[in-house]
């Protein structure tokens, strides 16, 4: 019995009470109550899939904080209206809006994802091979070094207006900007990774008479992989940043545009829906890249 009395369960009961106890007007929040239960069920599903004990516990804690947040939000925007009605629409309005807008949002997402994958994948496809080649060649490295020092630290956001006027379509411009934002972190980290491959491993490959493509793909690439993954993660964050920045400045579609557009009209339920949606998408993408990273680096003892 005692094992069911957890923080998240207690909060769930309180939350259900809050939602189902009618307002003076007689309104009952069925939808929100349902949502709270759906969240609990998904937590139980995730929990049953995760293997270690610590992670299981943490899913419940994460949910508890979410419940607390929703509870307070609802309490102060619907039951005791302390917060401004305009800036803090009540949860039910937002969620209804979220589901109503979902088809639209998905459509905007398509545009956003096209930009993101093009820019990001292009950056990886150029930066990783280039970094590996430059990292293994002393002369090229000496040439590249000053350029990296000058160009690397320029915040890529400053390129946006110029890129938009330079390139014929907004799509191309934002792909270029995402590319620039994503390029440097992964490029720099790839070079760093090559230079930091332990000397004894290079020595061992020399004694094994490795050279050419075998040396490149069997030693240099995996040896630099931890650093490449680090860079790729950073690049992904930069891509999100550049993506939204580009959409905020010059687009007429996309999730970033959606949020800016309705923000300008003061339509905050839509703005919050857009934010939640964007958060969910980013979470899904980083979860996916995390899986890939774990697979690539399963030989290290740090990533579990």
């Amino acid at each position, binding site marked *: 019995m005692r094992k069911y009395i957890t923080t998240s369960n207690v909060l769930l009961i309180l939350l259900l009470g809050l939602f189902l106890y009618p307002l003076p007007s007689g309104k009952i929040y069925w939808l929100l109550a349902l949502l709270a239960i759906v969240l609990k069920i998904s937590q139980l599903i995730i929990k049953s899939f995760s293997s270690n004990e610590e992670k299981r516990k943490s899913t419940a804690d994460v949910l508890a904080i979410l419940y607390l947040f929703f509870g307070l939000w609802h309490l102060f925007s619907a039951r005791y209206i302390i917060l401004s009605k305009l800036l803090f629409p009540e949860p039910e309005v937002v969620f209804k809006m979220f589901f109503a807008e979902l088809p639209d949002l998905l459509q905007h997402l398509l545009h956003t994802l096209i930009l993101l994958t093009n820019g990001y994948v292009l950056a990886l496809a150029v930066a990783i091979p280039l970094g590996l080649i430059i990292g293994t060649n002393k002369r090229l490295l000496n040439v590249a070094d000053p350029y990296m020092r000058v160009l690397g630290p320029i915040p890529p956001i400053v390129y946006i207006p110029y890129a938009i006027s330079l390139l014929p379509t907004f799509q191309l411009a934002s792909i270029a900007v995402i590319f620039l934002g994503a390029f440097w972190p992964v490029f720099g980290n790839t070079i760093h990774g090559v230079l930091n491959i332990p000397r004894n*491993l290079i*020595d061992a490959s*020399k*004694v094994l008479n490795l050279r050419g493509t075998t040396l490149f793909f069997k030693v240099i690439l995996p040896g630099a992989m931890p650093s490449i993954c680090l860079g790729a993660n950073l690049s992904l964050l930069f891509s999100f940043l550049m993506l939204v920045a580009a959409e905020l400045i010059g687009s007429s579609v996309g999730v970033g545009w959606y949020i800016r557009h309705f923000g300008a009209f003061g339509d905050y339920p839509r703005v919050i829906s857009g934010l939640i949606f964007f958060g969910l998408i980013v979470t899904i993408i980083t979860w996916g890249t995390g899986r890939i990273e774990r697979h690539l680096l399963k*030989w290290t003892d740090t990533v579990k």
Partner: protein
Amino acid sequence: MIDVLKLGKTFPLQASQGQAQSVTALHDINLQIIKGSIVSLLGPTGCGKSTLLEILAGLQSPTTGEVRLEGLPFATPIPTDKKLLKAYQRQHRFLSPQANRLFHNRPRHDIAMVFQDYAVFPWKNVLDNVTFTLSIVGVPKQQSQEIALGYLDKVGLLSSKTKYPSQLSGGMKQRLAIARALCVQPKIMLLDEPFASVDELTRQQLQELLLHIASATKVTIVLVTHDVAEAVYLSDKIFLFTPTPGTIYKTIEVNSPRPRRRSDAELVALQNQISTSFR
């Protein structure tokens, strides 16, 4: 036959306060290693044993003197003259100069090395580390699997064959490095303290394995060790080193016939003689 003639190695150090400093790791080393023999380099820490082994492996070049392999110059100093240096660099663009020269026009894999710090590939699991080495020598995939499993069995790693090096203990990594070096059946084996981090019982097993392979394949073995008993038991010849700068101050021939017994009075006496000469 490996001939080391008047070999010297000086490492430049970072200049401090404008003064160029350097460490002489090896000074005037002369030695001869007969084909198919087992020799040991014995000496206190820091006397340049690893450095000598790396020169023999072609990973470093000597500062003075040279190494000859079957009478052919194999490791020579990098030229200081600018023109000669250019030609030298062009010749050895991708590999270390010595390794390049060694493998030029030669069958692959004359040399295998067990590094002091193991140097197994951390991104390959135990089995793959060995099969990868075999694949480089050109052993077909199916065969290499079989051979690799055989050697892993011999070093006692069969049950850990799917583990990654990060999941192995130091001794296990060392045994993996040994399996990797043995499996290609090299002509020369350079072993840098190969049994340093395994327990006494395993060490004796591995020593027997090494002796077995040596007698079966006529491989030349150069063994670096701290362990006097090990040197005496395994070697035909022992070179005693002194540090700063590393020089050979004594060469000891071990003539007792094989197979030897560890408790053999002659060997024990030799051991004591070496131990006292260190003091």
